[in-house]
């Protein structure tokens, strides 16, 4: 129940050519738990473990797969908002509950071994440890199925959130800056994607012209798409539609980064069922084929990555993806880049040249018609900003758009290919889906 120690599954180099398993792997099932703001510490049917089991069962039911058919489980260690948050990052030391919740496992931590035991998955032969985040997990699953490491593989991504102020404990409460933080924290940078992107974003505004609040139409549209996503946080919690006026009037976090530029930490889990294209054709859902997966991990030159680096990195990531998929910008119908902090999406949009958007064009593009009903349905998922920090809305939307089951979010333009990601400019991965295998 593990992977070979040195299983080389990543496609993280330039010039790898077309993916050898292009169109031979498919997604056959999707499952989402409810999306809560936090786990209340009491409700045992709302723990991260309970939600992960629920998401798996939904994905299996959707595909028509039984537990005995599952032979691969890919689950990363849980991502608790405030992972560096000291007391806010663990439920303990309060008394635990009856098994299987007699430790942190299942409450705030979920992994493949715990899920396999709780779900009685007896035939799992591929359950790697040390799994990275969802940005790479989907690529790992696609490669593992293509390589024959497993044939029916669950990918589970749990994201937790506990009571307590967000990430203000632990090392953020320390008077000392240790390790890599000695170069950032004395001046106020606690480390995070907000800081990674806000400086290049400022350089972007000066280089190409534009103001931070030119992001408003994009953020507002993300919320609109989120409200069209039945399982998302906003749609299930009566969150009112954000307006441009509310956006530009919202308080600053890292000025000019506003509150509404930041995603909302949530407690939720999602699962996807990957299998061979051949098997998928006999399952309940119309298969959505994987046309390529790619990863990247770029090192910044100095303390703070700048616009030039980020544009170079995202250009390379786009080239890797397009080359492996055998597609170009004009071939991508549905585009779901990451949006966990609003000022990073423009870097991806322009690198992938989706709908002809080049460097410096994003703000003008945002000001046009990017609604799902329109000609340029950017981020039809609503992303993290519209659904909460599940980091999975992008993938689910890609799959649903190609199936034609996106409901009120269904795009009116052609939907034969879809590109999705949870990635930062420096590290993460992309995955390209197709309605057909070729």
């Amino acid at each position, binding site marked *: 129940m593990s992977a070979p120690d040195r299983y080389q599954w990543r496609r993280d180099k330039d010039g790898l050519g077309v993916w050898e398993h292009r169109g031979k792997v498919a997604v056959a099932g999707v499952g989402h738990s409810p999306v809560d703001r936090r786990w209340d510490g009491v409700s045992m049917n709302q723990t991260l473990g309970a939600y992960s089991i629920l998401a798996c069962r939904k994905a299996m039911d959707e595909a028509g797969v039984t537990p005995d058919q599952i032979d691969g489980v890919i689950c990363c260690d849980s991502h608790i908002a405030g992972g560096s948050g000291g007391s806010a990052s663990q439920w303990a030391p309060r008394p635990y509950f009856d098994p299987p919740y007699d430790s942190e496992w299942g409450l705030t931590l979920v992994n493949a071994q715990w899920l396999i035991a709780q779900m009685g998955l007896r035939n799992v032969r591929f359950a790697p440890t040390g799994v990275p985040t969802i940005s790479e997990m989907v690529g790992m699953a696609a490669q593992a199925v293509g390589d024959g490491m497993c044939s029916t593989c669950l990918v589970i991504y749990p994201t937790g959130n506990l009571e307590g102020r*967000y*990430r*203000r404990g632990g090392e*953020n*409460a*320390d*008077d*000392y*800056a*240790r*390790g*890599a*933080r*000695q*170069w*950032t*924290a*004395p*001046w*106020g*940078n*606690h480390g995070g994607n907000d800081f990674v992107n*806000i*400086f*290049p974003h*400022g*350089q972007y505004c*000066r280089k190409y012209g534009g103001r931070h609040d030119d992001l408003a139409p994009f953020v507002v549209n993300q919320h609109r798409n989120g409200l069209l996503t039945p399982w998302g946080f906003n749609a299930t919690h009566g969150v009112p539609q954000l307006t441009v006026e509310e956006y530009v009037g919202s*308080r*600053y*976090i*890292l*000025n*000019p*980064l506003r509150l509404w530029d930041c995603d909302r930490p949530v407690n939720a889990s999602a699962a996807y069922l990957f299998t061979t294209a051949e098997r998928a054709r006999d399952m309940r859902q119309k298969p959505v084929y994987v046309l390529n997966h790619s990863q990247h991990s770029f*090192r910044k*030159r*100095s*303390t*703070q990555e*700048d616009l030039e680096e980020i544009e170079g990195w995202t250009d390379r990531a786009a080239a890797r993806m397009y080359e492996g998929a055998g597609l170009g910008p004009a071939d991508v119908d549905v585009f779901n880049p990451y949006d966990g902090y609003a000022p990073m999406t423009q870097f991806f949009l322009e690198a992938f040249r989706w709908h002809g958007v080049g460097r410096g064009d994003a703000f003008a593009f945002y000001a046009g018609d990017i609604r799902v009903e329109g000609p340029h349905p950017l981020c039809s998922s609503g992303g993290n900003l519209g659904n909460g920090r599940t980091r999975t809305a992008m993938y689910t939307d890609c799959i649903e758009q190609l199936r034609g089951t996106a409901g009120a979010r269904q795009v009116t333009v052609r939907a034969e290919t879809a590109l999705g990601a949870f990635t930062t400019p420096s590290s993460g991965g992309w995955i390209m889906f197709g309605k057909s295998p070729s």
Partner: protein
Amino acid sequence: MPKLIPVADALSKPFWDAVNQRRLVLQHCAACDRLQYPPQKACQVCGSDAGLTWKEVEGRGHIAAAIVIEDGRLNRRMPDQPYNLAMVTLDADERVNFYSNLPGTPAYKVPVGAAVEVTFEEVAPDQLIHEWRVVP
């Protein structure tokens, strides 16, 4: 409220020792003739550690970008909010950059593009950090 206090390690000790002497020294790769900051075990470009030495540099730079931290997560810095956080590039090699709170420059009044020079600020007894001031 004071800033967080950097804790030197084996790799960074020469840097912080120099800062405590009010000098700015950076790693320099002889093979690539490039400066490197923060310090690393090997040259980021050629991967070699053989040619890495410490080189004193002139503390002059420019402000490339800036934000104002209004709701940060570092407890020790919260009483300072709002405060500037600038990205300063080194004139000797613009690929090298530093963070700075730009002491002497009021929050929200950062002249992006302006020239700056290094200064040193005490964050604890016997511990300085490098900071940058706008050149008048």
